[in-house]
């Protein structure tokens, strides 16, 4: 009691006056605590009320909660799957796993293709050629104003309106486009091919290490050792030698018309094709704008200074402009990748069986509504967080290092 009244000037340490909380409304610290307790209390109360209602409702409907249903036989027919699946013997858990894989299959390939198309269109908007600049601007303005779902339905009906396998649109004897999807030739996969792929991976690591070494040499001596002969050797020659030595067969399986449909080859289903097409075409419109504004954000003086140094135009772009533009481009690009991944959930509207579609079927069959929604949300949160983390890492990697 006494030290609260002591004159702080009298104490030798001269510490700042010790704040003790007074239980008065005029004390901001006290107010802050009251507000927090109140708000958190209300939120927790509402959530608890909703949970108790849910528990009552579930009890009334005799639905057991929990993820036990994951081990039951699914019985959901799944059209395309990357892992073996039989509705009569595999479980809901496996069906959901297939959904996750299908979502990833669309998202990964969609992100790559949309980036390529978007970059081309974004650079096209900056073209000196008037026609190219106008046509790309028209593309960007129109595609971004039409709901993605409408575009997906449009592509899907367009693909369904294609001729039947007997009158397929074809390129030679290898590629067929029909209302059953796109048929492509497929390399017959043997263990030797896996070895070739493994060699390629080793080669990639080698190229990475060598270019790191080359950069160190350049920093130390100013002369960069040639990288491309080593790169070619590691990436092309080495896998080729491995392939020849092991005798990898180059047998290509062509799709062949048998009866009403094609047999063999690689099939890209109309659902997957329409979804990929819609996502890529739509997202590319946004990526184009990001790329364009990123390149425009690089000051003109940078181009001119690079030109004055005598760099070739390709080098100007690669060494001067892109590294600076990327810093502007990466953060919005991340959110576009996230958008593409989340938008792939629209697959449910055209019958491609991604995680949303399979989880939806599951919750309809089992009545496990909460668990089904929780699975969907957990999957997307995981994917979103992973993409965010990766892109943040990449962004930090290329960020301007300031003193």
């Amino acid at each position, binding site marked *: 009691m006494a030290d609260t009244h002591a004159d702080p000037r009298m104490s030798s340490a001269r510490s700042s006056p010790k704040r003790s909380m007074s239980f008065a409304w005029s004390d901001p610290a006290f107010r802050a605590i009251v507000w927090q307790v109140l708000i958190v209390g209300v939120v927790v109360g509402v959530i608890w009320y909703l949970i108790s209602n849910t528990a*009552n409702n579930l009890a009334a409907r005799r639905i057991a909660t929990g993820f036990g249903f994951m081990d039951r036989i699914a019985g959901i027919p799944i059209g395309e799957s990357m892992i073996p699946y039989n509705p009569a013997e595999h479980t809901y858990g496996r069906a959901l796993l297939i959904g996750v894989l299908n979502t990833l299959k669309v998202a990964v390939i969609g992100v790559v293709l949309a980036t390529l198309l978007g970059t081309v269109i974004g650079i096209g908007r900056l073209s000196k050629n008037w*026609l190219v600049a106008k046509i790309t601007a028209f593309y960007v303005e129109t595609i971004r104003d039409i709901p993605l779902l*409408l575009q997906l339905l449009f592509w899907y*009906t367009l693909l369904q309106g294609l001729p039947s396998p007997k009158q397929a649109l074809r390129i030679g004897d290898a590629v067929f486009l029909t209302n059953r999807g796109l048929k492509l030739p497929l390399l017959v996969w043997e263990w030797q091919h896996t070895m070739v792929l493994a060699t390629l991976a080793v080669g990639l690591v080698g190229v990475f290490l060598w270019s790191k070494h080359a950069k160190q040499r350049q920093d130390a001596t100013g002369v960069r050792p040639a990288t491309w002969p080593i790169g070619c050797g590691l990436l092309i020659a080495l896998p080729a030698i491995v392939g020849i030595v092991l005798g990898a067969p180059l047998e290509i399986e062509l799709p062949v018309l048998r009866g009403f449909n094609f047999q063999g080859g690689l099939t890209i289903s109309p659902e997957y094709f329409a979804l990929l097409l819609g996502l890529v075409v739509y997202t590319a419109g946004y990526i184009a704008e990001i790329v364009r504004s990123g390149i425009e954000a690089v000051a003109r003086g940078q181009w001119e200074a690079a030109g004055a140094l005598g760099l070739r135009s390709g080098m100007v772009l690669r060494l001067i402009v892109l590294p600076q533009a990327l810093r502007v481009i990466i953060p919005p690009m991340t959110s576009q990748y996230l958008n593409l991944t989340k938008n792939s959930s629209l697959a449910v509207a055209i019958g491609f069986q991604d995680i949303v579609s399979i989880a939806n079927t599951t919750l309809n069959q089992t009545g496990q509504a909460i668990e089904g929604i929780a699975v*969907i949300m957990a999957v997307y949160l995981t994917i979103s967080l992973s993409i965010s983390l990766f892109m943040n890492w990449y962004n930090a990697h290329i960020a301007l290092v300031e003193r």
Partner: protein
Amino acid sequence: MSETVVTASSIPAGGNKAPPAGMVGPWAWLKANLFNSWLSTATTLLLGYLILRAAVGFIDWAFIHAIWTVPYSAKGVPDTSSCQNAKEVGACWAVIGDKYRLILFGRYPYEEQWRPALCVVLFIGLYIVSAMRRFWRKELALIWIVTLSAIFILMGGGLFGLKEVQNDYWGGLPITLILATFGIACAFPLSILVALGRRSTKLPAVKLLCVLYVELIRGVPLISVLFMASVMFPLFMPAGVNIDKLLRAQIAVILFAAAYLAEVVRGGLQSLPKGQYEAADALGLSYWHKTGLIILPQALKLVIPPLVNTFIGFFKDTSLVLIIGLFDLLTMGKVALSDPPWQSFSTEVYIALAIIYIGFCFAMSNYSRGLERELGRGERR
């Protein structure tokens, strides 16, 4: 001395000489913009050929060989054989003529359809008024409340001698506009609170709640939130309480939109110079006075262009309610196509729907771009 006087006529007309021939005029423009190198020339020729072919093909399909009306049988069933014959060569716009009321207004009672039509007009009027800077005052909130209640009464009826229409029968464009507009109108105040909560330094628990809410919602697709609304909301309610489908979707849209808007508003709060906060503190204003009088008016003005862009996004995203079976514009397009005679004319319907969406979105994005230029003018000076 007179020989040293330089008269105007003796100056070589270097300053205002006409540019050399070939530097101006349409030919020079063509040369500079379309044919300035062999690569550019090749691109121009190839693209020009493709565009011309596509344009001719489209005009041929959409106008020249198009079929605008079809005969009806005595029972009112359309006879689409002429359309079927012209399937590959010409569009069949007769499907739009036959179905436009269904697509625009859904299953709303036919003789009462002036009401949704008036609602659409009211919505557009509301957008136009809100877009004019002259009306950016506190009264605008009042205008919104009045107009939105008028729209609600007009659609639902039951008052002022209007026939009552259950919202199961609402459909088409009004549903799209209702979901988007009511969604934004309710999400906006919520988003301001969430953004303020997320920026708060003194209330860590509230900040945590806001961060969790925003990141959770932004990490999942809208569909999952809509699914949650359609299958989980009924479980959340006490037994006997039933919220109808439209309201459930509307709540989902609001919860979803608020998370995105909160991030936009937070951007505005962050871009305000710190001095504004400190000056308000120095004046001895309380938190709410500081926020309401100093911070929000400036921060919100900064984020109007991104707010409009977010609104465009949600306008398009309302089409997702198709998946949970609500009758918005896109769903009605699909319903119209399920009529057997018109089943194979989806392209025409989808084009018509795309034109409506493009019309709204293009107007809004054009406006947002103009606004950005206008608001940026002060800073560039």
